[in-house]
């Protein structure tokens, strides 16, 4: 069976006056129908660039590698062919709903827009679809609110409108780029529940991009941890949290203040700051911040500095790009 989405060795580079920015430097992942892949990483690690590349929205960048939807190669597809994929089979929602909604059109017109194009529907059918979608995402009085403008909606409701817009054409894959980061926690809980409900009802594949490990733990089935444009670790969600193998993943989990913490010991911070994407060091990009390599024997330390680690299997579905992973190989 072909998978819903398969991305293989994706690289995205931008030419800038300061040099080539290797924003995404060889990542691979897959998403199955009805499953959620959590894409986590800190600011600048390449999450948004990855998702835009999958949508074919990277003009000006050099995109290499393979992006297959139901086995069909999307990388290199012409703009017209991509247009029928985008919005129809893959839909995307962004962090800031206000900047992606047009202020001068009613929310109904915006929800109906793609639907009318892809399904050749008339204005009346488009409006009916918009009302139906607003109801599905839990907007009260959808028949009235369909004719209102984005500024008449609260932040949480705008994000619902975005979701309605994304799902109006019944796509197979939803890419959600920090969909709740700008929202309050109580509203975030509503939106995450909404996405989960629709996913179950429709068997939607979801890529959930976030920097919040709590959100990942709540919604993801599989997780890809990114660091400096590369995959640091990939694992089923339970495994990643219970047995992180990459020192960076481990460091992230240790540095989190947690609601369920019982002691007040100082947080274990990761020293230093994220790597440069323009002139990456030859070895492991996490090496300057990695406590594990500092504590390692001289020759292992030298290897971390000289040789870039590649993803290696540790257990079924679990891979880490580290010369000295925290889980012994072959142990389940």
């Amino acid at each position: 069976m072909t998978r819903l989405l398969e991305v293989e060795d994706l690289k995205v580079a931008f030419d800038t006056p300061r040099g080539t920015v290797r924003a995404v430097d060889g990542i691979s992942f897959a998403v199955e129908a009805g499953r959620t892949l959590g894409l986590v990483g800190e600011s600048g690690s390449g999450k948004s660039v990855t998702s835009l590349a999958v949508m074919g929205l990277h003009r000006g960048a050099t995109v290499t590698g393979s992006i297959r939807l139901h086995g069909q190669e999307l990388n290199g597809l012409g703009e017209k062919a991509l247009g029928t994929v985008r919005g129809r089979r893959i839909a995307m929602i962004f962090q800031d709903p206000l900047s992606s909604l047009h202020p001068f059109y009613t929310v109904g017109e915006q929800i109906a827009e793609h639907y009318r194009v892809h399904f050749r529907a008339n204005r009346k059918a488009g409006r009916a679809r918009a009302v139906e979608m607003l109801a599905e995402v839990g907007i009260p009085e959808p028949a009235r609110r369909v004719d209102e403008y984005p500024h008449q909606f609260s932040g949480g409701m705008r994000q619902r409108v975005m979701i309605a817009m994304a799902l109006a054409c019944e796509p197979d894959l939803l890419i959600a780029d920090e969909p709740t980061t700008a929202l309050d926690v109580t509203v975030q809980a509503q939106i995450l529940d909404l996405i989960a409900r629709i996913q179950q009802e429709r068997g939607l594949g979801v890529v959930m991009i976030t920097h919040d490990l709590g959100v990942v733990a709540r919604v993801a089935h599989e997780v890809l941890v990114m660091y400096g444009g590369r995959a640091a670790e990939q694992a089923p969600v339970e495994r990643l949290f219970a047995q992180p193998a990459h020192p960076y993943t481990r460091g992230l989990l240790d540095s989190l203040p947690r609601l369920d913490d019982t002691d007040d010991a100082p947080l274990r911070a990761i020293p230093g700051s994220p790597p440069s994407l323009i002139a990456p060091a030859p070895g492991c990009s996490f090496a300057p911040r990695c406590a594990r390599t500092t504590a390692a024997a001289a020759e292992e330390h030298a290897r971390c500095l000289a040789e870039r680690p590649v993803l290696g299997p540790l257990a079924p579905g679990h891979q880490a790009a580290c010369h000295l992973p925290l889980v012994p190989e072959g142990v389940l």
Partner: protein
Amino acid sequence: MTEPSLTGPPTNEPLLSVRDLVKTFPGRRSRTGRPGAPVRAVDGVSFDVGAGETLGLVGESGCGKSTTGRMIVRLLDPTSGTVTFDGTEIGGLSQARLRPHRRDLQMVFQDPYSSLNPRQTVSRIISEPLLVQGESATAARKRAAELMELVGLIPEHLDRYPHEFSGGQAQRIGIARALATSPRLVIADEPVSALDVSIQAQVVNLMERLQQELGLAYVFIAHDLSVVKRVCDRVAVMYLGRIVEIGDKAEVYGSPAHPYTRALLSAVPLPDPEAERTRERIVLLGDPPSPADPPPGCSFHPRCPKAQDLCRTERPLLRIAGPGTREAACHFPEVPGS
């Protein structure tokens, strides 16, 4: 008001005491040019902060946290109410009369870059509050170098500009500036919200270390309840301009009494898939209402799973809920053991 005495203020007096603080903003003009209803951004807030203590101020966007903080340091003038710092009422002082107190009362802001002047060197930025206090340029620069070291930055970088630092480093510069005058109270408004997780911990640890070394008191404003739990001794939960629950961290986090606090805590995603699958969540309906048009009675009633008729008509006041000292503004608080 307390009389000034030769022996100084009695030791049981809180360092900061805020009473019935109110801030009303004029309503924004609508598109048709009609003035909107005035916004009661802060609607009668009272709390104390002891010397060396951290009070966490939490709540969702727009509930009035920043406005409260800004009134305490007098970046905003209160509409009414009092701010008593170390026995002196400073809420109504003129900026000139306020100057001697500025030394003791500083603020750290959310966005590390936009709160630092991009055209000034770090040395100049950190020295600024000292120069305002009349310190000489040489003395101020020397102190700036000490402060760089204190917050874990390299003193040799004094002549660099803010954009040459990472976000976490820039936030350290903001903290160094706040500490320049050796304040006794720092209002930290979302000091780590703009930072990456791995960097947040560095800044949180720094703030905790400085508190121990310098005996600082903090009002730590944040919407991230996990961070606040980490750093505070006591916590106040705000909703729509009012404090709905306040008390010791252990009481408020351990057995929240106000339905809003309960919902807020249960909505925070835990970095633990196992716990996430099994825990019970209270999902609130709707969004926080606009402070320009607060609901009557208990302002939380349209979203409260426990609301009764009384809640729709009568505003609940803060009062002790439960065995400890925690207070909640709810007609039907959840009391441990009941």
